[in-house]
């Protein structure tokens, strides 16, 4: 065709085309420039959007009363949080301060130099240094350095059980492996699933691996893996863990349906509160989940205890796994680093800890013990706090401790192991080979 598109057609169409082109250009320009997140005088903080945000919002409001630079709290809906943060951090509108799980969840940001190393800041500041339980501070760090300040309640994984079922069958919650096996047999014979497990969500299966490996080989085995040594999966304790899982499945410890039971939509918790399952290994949020789903059961028949010992294991039975807490980290590109640190310091305050307690959380501050009697559920809060305070080691959930590039294949491999698609040996090989 000889003539170009703009020389052809009537005047009207030419204008229409030009107009459309301009609109498109506008769209393109709009894509390029993000609205700056940290305009002068504001400090943007991203937080995981759930019920607890009101506690952080209150802290922000109090802080803003005296601070010249104002903190702006952005609540990102939970399911989108990780992705939203990820894309924001790579853009000009990155937050100054953001919520995270410590460990592997911040490793990519640490590697690309996006985070402020808070080690010396904390070392030189009595409020921050002595403000929190030591195991919590270490758990969120990376290779001996600290990048975050605890900002929410602790979430250790505990063994929850149905007291009514245990009373009915006249047994005690298991403390040793033999007792656990006896309990499995008793409940199976009675037609009750010994352990509820939300296998379709995958991460509840991970909790079993975490505790078993800790009890069998001690926390050092996973520490090594977390620090970047994938050959650490070759440790004999990992193989034994995987074999123990297989034995449990073959023994019917989780029933037959666990692959299609979920946690997110309430499958596994309902099994426990309806008396169809006797025990449930779950994070401490299980308590509030049950309180919401079956308040009667939660108040009367919900029991909790530590994960039992495993025969021949070298791990300290007082060790805990789970999410120690959540942390605030500071973006290295922030214009208001001092304000950020000042805001982080308020996390160690009595007022903030009290607000967490009132919300039903168990704070990770060192002086929280005395406040717990005022908690909506004092016994549970105190037991949980003591469990974590006495724990020599608190292993961060593997899917948070490892970077996404290892954590996602890990969840897939664990799901395959539990589904019986791979043998324990194949699991170990697959993990060693993970790139």
């Amino acid at each position: 065709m000889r003539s170009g598109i703009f020389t052809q057609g009537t005047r009207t169409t030419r204008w229409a085309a030009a107009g459309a082109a301009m609109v498109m250009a506008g769209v393109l320009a709009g894509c390029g420039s993000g609205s700056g997140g940290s305009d002068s005088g504001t400090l943007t903080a991203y937080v995981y959007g759930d019920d607890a945000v009101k506690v952080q919002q209150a802290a922000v409001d109090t802080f803003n009363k005296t601070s010249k630079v104002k903190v702006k709290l952005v609540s990102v809906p939970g399911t989108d949080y990780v992705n939203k943060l990820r894309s924001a951090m790579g853009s000009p509108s990155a937050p100054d301060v953001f919520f995270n799980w410590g460990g592997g969840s911040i490793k990519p940001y640490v590697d690309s130099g996006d985070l402020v190393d808070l080690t010396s800041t904390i070392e030189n500041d009595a409020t921050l240094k002595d403000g929190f339980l030591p195991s919590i501070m270490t758990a969120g760090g990376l290779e001996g350095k600290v990048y975050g300040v605890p900002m929410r309640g602790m979430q250790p994984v505990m063994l929850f059980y149905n007291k009514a079922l245990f009373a009915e069958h006249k047994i005690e919650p298991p403390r040793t492996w033999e007792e656990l096996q006896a309990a499995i047999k008793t409940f199976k014979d009675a037609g009750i699933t010994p352990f509820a497990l939300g296998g379709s969500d995958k991460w509840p299966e991970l909790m079993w691996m975490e505790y078993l490996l800790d009890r069998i080989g001690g926390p050092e085995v996973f520490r090594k893996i977390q620090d970047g040594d994938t050959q650490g999966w070759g440790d004999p304790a990992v193989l034994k863990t995987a074999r123990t899982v297989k034995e449990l499945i073959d023994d019917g410890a989780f029933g037959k349906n666990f692959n299609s039971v979920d946690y997110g939509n309430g499958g596994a918790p309902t099994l426990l509160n309806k008396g169809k399952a006797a025990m449930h290994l779950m994070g401490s949020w299980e308590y509030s989940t049950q309180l919401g789903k079956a308040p009667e059961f939660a108040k009367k028949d919900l029991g909790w205890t530590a994960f039992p010992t495993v025969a021949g294991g070298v791990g300290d039975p007082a060790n805990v796994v789970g999410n120690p807490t959540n942390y605030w980290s500071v973006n290295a590109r922030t214009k208001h680093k001092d304000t950020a640190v000042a805001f982080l310091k308020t996390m160690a305050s009595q007022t903030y800890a009290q607000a967490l307690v009132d919300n039903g959380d168990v704070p990770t501050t060192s002086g929280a013990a005395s406040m717990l009697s005022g908690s909506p559920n004092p016994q549970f809060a105190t037991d949980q706090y003591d469990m974590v305070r006495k724990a020599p080691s608190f292993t961060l959930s593997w899917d948070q401790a490892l970077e996404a590039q290892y954590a996602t294949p890990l969840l897939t491999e664990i799901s395959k192991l539990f589904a019986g698609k791979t043998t324990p040996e194949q699991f170990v090989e697959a993990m060693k080979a993970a790139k």
Partner: protein
Amino acid sequence: MPHPTPVAKRRGAGKAAVGDVGRPPVAWAVPGILFFAVFAIVPLAIAVYLSFCTWDGLDSPTLTGLDNWTRLFKDSEFGQAAWLSLLLTTISWLFQTPVALLLGVWAAGRQRGRAFLSAIFFIPLLLSTTAIAMLFHALLDPNFGVVRTIGPWLGIDPNVMGSSTGALLVVAFVGGWQFMPFHTLIYQGGARQIPEVLYQAASIDGAGLVRQFLHITLPQLRHTMTTSSVLMIVGSLTYFDTVLIMTKGGPGTDTTILPYLMYRTGFQTYDLGYAAAVATALVVVATSISLLMVRLSGFGSMRSTREGM
């Protein structure tokens, strides 16, 4: 057209230079082309570019040549995902086409209560995929879902979502349930286009309902079938939401179809380069299958089904 020249003269009046008379000028296509370029061609080009890079979404992408592509062909998980995608597509087609075809032809008629029933059949298409997936997920809960109560009567194991074949069939079924009304609608439209005289002539010649269906309806719906099948196949190949909500690719990786593998690699593992390679491979496969179907069915030659009438 019996008299093309006068028409052309009238349209071209005052603009003698215009050559292609009777067709709108290319300028009309500019908004469409621009829109397509910005939202389809450019992203596609970027995806192809990314497939030759390593990128975690934080730093800048670094070119690594053919690394992702060599990995793709060796990756057993990709192989499995491709196989599962093809399997799902085949099952979906076999499940949806006969039902949609029969329903569509039925809905094109003038029976009593047809409009009412058609409206009911249409409902699944109006629901959001997420809502449908959540609904079926609840129905298929092995302990508290309906499947627990009525499953055994129908010979369905309540743990259907926990078994490899079961989970894949469920995904195919839920997708089919949702999109069948759409294809019914396409077939209904197609069947309405068939000239009544064909049936009248066939009746006079003594052809029964089945013969009329086989020798008039089916051949007349050839192009409709191609349209519906291409949409169905491309839809199944890019099917994603239901897997994400109902199975998360499990049990194990037994429902990890290509789009889900792409999502997992891209937005959970943040291996965006490799995810782009998976995506590009998916585009190539889906486009080739569509083109192949159009070619084989003779749809592309645009020959009328009414030739000789």
